[in-house]
C-alpha cells in the first residue's frame, strides 16, 4: 500500500485507532464526560483528516475503497450528524445511570461503518460496512434497556436487517456468478457485453441487492420495521438511524447503481418508480392520523426516501446523472439537518421522562408558550420536512422537482405533489398541538446545554441554507460531481 493510499484512508485509520483508545479509557477510567469528549474529538479529527486527502482524489485504495469528492462530501455529512447525535446522546444518557460509555464507542463504530460504506467500491467493503453499521446499531437501539420497547425494536431490527443483508449477499453472489467480479466499476463492462442470460442474472442480482437496500432505506413495501424501530429506539439513536444509516446506504446505492450502469436498465427503472410511488403514498398515508410523533417522523422518512428516489431514478434517465447526484445530495443534506433538528427536539422533550421517550403528541402540547424557542425550532424542522420556503427542505424539494422535470417524470412528480399535500396535514397537526393553550406537559422541559446548542445550530443552518443555498450548491458541485 502506497503512502498516498495510506493518507487517503487516514480518516478511517484514525477513527479506528481512537475507538481503541476510547475502549482503553473506558476500561481503565470510566467517565461519561471523558468518553464523550473523546468521541467528539475523534469525530472532529476524522473530519480534519480528510484534508490531506483532498489533493489526492480520486484515489483507489485496494479494490475495496475509493476516496473521491463524493465520498468526502458524504463523510462530512455523516461526521456532522454523528457529532450532533453524540451531543444529543450525552444529554439523553447522562442522567440514566452508569455504564453508558460503551454507547459512544458503538456510535463511533457505527460511524466508521458508515464512512467505509460511502467510500467503498467493492461488494466486500459494502457488506462489511453495512454490517458494521448494523451490528453497532442493534446494540445502540437496545442500549438503555429500560422497558421492553427498546429490546423489541432492536430484535425486530436485527432479524429483519439480517434478512435484508442476506438479500444483498445473495444478489451479490448472483452477480458475481455471472460477472466474476466484485468491484462496482467492472460490472459496467460486463453488462453491455454479454447475452440475455447475463442480463437476467444482473437484473435478478440487482433486484435482490435493491430489495435489501430498500429495507435499510425503509422504502415500501420494506418499510414496516421503521415506525416500530423509530418508536422503540432512544431518540438520539433514531436520529442516527434516520440520518447516518440511511444516508450512507443511499450514497453507496447511488454509487453502485450509477458506476455499474445497472440503473439504466428499463425494467429496473420501472421497479424503482413503483417503489418510489408506493413509498411516497404509503409513508404519507400511514402518518396521516398518527398520534405518536416519533412514528410520524418514521412515516415521514419513508415518504422522504420516496421523494429521494425520484432524484435517484433521474440518474437512469438520459442526461440525468449529474443532476441526479447533485439533487439527491442536496436533498439528503436538507434531510439530514432537518431530521437531526426534529430528533434533537424530540430528545430534549424526552429528557423529562426517563421511562419512555416523548412519542405521544400530547408531550408537545403548549410547547409554544412554555418553550417558544424550542417550539419555533421544531416548527422550522417540520416546515422544512413539509418543504415550505425559508427552510432548507424547500430547496431540497425544489431540487427533486427540478430533477423530475428535467427528465420528465410526470407520474412521479404527481405522486410527490399528492404526497406533499397529505404530508402537510400531519406536520401541521404537530404544529397545531404545540400552539394549544395548555399548562400541562411542556412546562417542565429543561433545555440542556449540549443538545440545545446542537439544535440551535441545526435550526440556524436550516434557515440559512433555506434562504441562501448557494454555498452548499457550490460545494456539492465541486465535490460530488466526481461520480457522475
Amino acid at each position: 500500500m502506497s503512502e498516498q493510499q495510506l493518507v487517503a484512508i487516514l480518516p478511517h485509520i484514525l477513527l479506528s485507532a481512537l475507538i481503541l483508545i476510547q475502549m482503553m479509557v473506558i476500561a481503565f477510567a470510566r467517565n461519561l464526560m471523558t468518553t464523550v469528549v473523546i468521541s467528539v474529538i475523534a469525530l472532529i479529527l476524522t473530519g480534519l483528516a480528510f484534508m490531506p486527502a483532498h489533493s489526492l482524489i480520486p484515489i483507489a485504495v485496494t479494490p475495496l475503497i475509493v476516496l473521491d469528492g463524493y465520498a468526502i462530501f458524504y463523510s462530512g455529512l455523516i461526521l456532522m450528524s454523528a457529532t450532533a447525535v453524540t451531543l444529543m446522546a450525552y444529554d439523553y444518557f447522562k442522567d440514566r445511570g452508569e455504564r453508558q460509555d460503551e454507547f459512544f464507542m458503538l456510535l463511533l463504530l457505527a460511524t466508521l461503518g458508515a464512512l467505509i460504506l460511502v467510500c467503498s467500491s467493492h461488494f466486500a467493503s459494502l457488506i462489511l460496512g453495512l454490517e458494521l453499521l448494523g451490528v453497532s446499531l442493534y446494540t445502540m437501539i437496545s442500549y438503555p434497556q429500560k422497558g421492553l420497547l427498546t429490546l423489541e425494536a432492536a430484535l425486530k431490527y436485527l432479524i429483519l436487517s439480517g434478512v435484508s443483508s442476506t438479500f444483498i449477499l445473495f444478489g451479490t453472489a448472483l452477480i458475481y456468478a455471472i460477472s466474476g467480479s466484485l468491484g462496482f466499476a467492472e460490472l459496467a463492462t460486463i453488462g453491455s457485453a454479454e447475452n440475455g442470460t447475463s442480463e437476467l442474472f444482473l437484473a435478478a442480482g440487482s433486484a435482490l441487492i435493491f430489495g435489501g437496500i430498500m429495507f435499510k432505506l425503509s422504502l415500501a413495501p420494506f418499510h414496516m420495521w421503521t415506525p416500530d424501530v423509530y418508536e422503540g429506539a432512544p431518540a438520539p439513536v433514531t436520529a442516527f438511524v434516520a440520518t447516518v444509516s440511511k444516508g450512507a446506504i443511499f450514497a453507496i446505492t447511488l454509487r453502485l447503481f450509477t458506476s455499474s450502469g445497472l440503473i439504466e436498465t428499463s425494467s429496473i427503472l420501472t421497479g424503482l418508480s413503483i417503489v418510489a410511488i408506493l413509498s411516497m403514498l404509503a409513508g404519507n398515508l400511514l402518518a396521516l392520523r398518527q398520534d405518536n410523533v416519533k412514528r410520524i417522523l418514521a412515516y415521514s422518512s419513508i415518504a422522504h426516501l420516496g421523494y429521494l428516489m425520484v432524484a435517484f431514478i433521474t440518474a437512469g434517465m438520459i442526461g440525468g446523472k449529474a443532476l441526479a447526484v447533485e439533487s439527491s445530495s442536496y436533498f439528503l443534506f436538507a434531510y439530514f439537518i432537518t431530521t437531526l433538528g426534529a430528533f434533537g427536539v424530540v430528545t430534549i422533550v424526552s429528557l423529562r421522562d426517563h421511562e419512555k421517550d416523548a412519542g405521544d403528541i400530547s408531550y408537545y402540547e403548549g410547547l409554544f408558550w412554555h418553550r417558544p424557542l424550542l417550539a419555533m425550532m421544531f416548527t422550522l424542522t417540520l416546515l422544512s420536512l413539509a418543504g415550505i420556503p425559508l427552510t432548507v427542505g424547500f430547496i431540497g424539494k425544489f431540487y427533486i422537482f427540478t430533477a423530475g422535470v428535467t427528465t420528465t417524470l410526470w407520474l412521479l412528480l404527481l405522486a410527490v405533489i399528492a404526497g406533499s399535500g397529505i404530508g402537510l396535514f400531519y406536520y401541521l397537526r404537530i404544529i397545531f398541538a404545540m400552539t394549544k393553550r395548555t399548562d400541562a406537559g411542556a412546562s417542565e422541559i429543561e433545555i440542556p446545554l449540549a443538545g440545545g446548542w446542537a439544535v440551535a445550530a441545526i435550526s440556524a443552518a436550516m434557515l440559512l441554507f433555506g434562504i441562501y443555498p448557494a454555498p452548499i450548491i457550490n460545494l456539492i458541485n465541486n465535490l460530488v460531481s466526481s461520480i457522475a
Partner: protein
Amino acid sequence: MDPIAVPIEQGLALASILFAIGLTGVMVRRNIIVILMSLEVMLNACALAFIVAGAKWGEADGQIMFMLILSVAAAEVAVGLGLLLQINRRVGSIDIDEISRLRG
C-alpha cells in the same frame, strides 16, 4: 482433488432453495432461537452461492466472501443471542409475539 463438474445452475439452485427455506422459517416461526437459526440458514445459503460462483471462476474471492459472511454471521448471532437473553430475563419467554407491543 479436483472439483467435480457441478453445473453452476444446480449449485445455485441448491443455494436458492436453502435460502427460500430459511426465509420460510423466519416468516413462520415464533421462537426467537429458531428465527435466528433460520437467519443463519439464509446466510449459509448465501455462503454456498458464493462458493459455487467462486468455483465457477476458480478464484479465491468466493471463499473470501464466505469467510466474511462467517464473521457477519458470528457478529449477528452474538448480538442476537445477547438480546435474546436479555428478553428472556425480562419476559420469561422467547416467543416473539409475546414481546410485540410496538404497532400502528
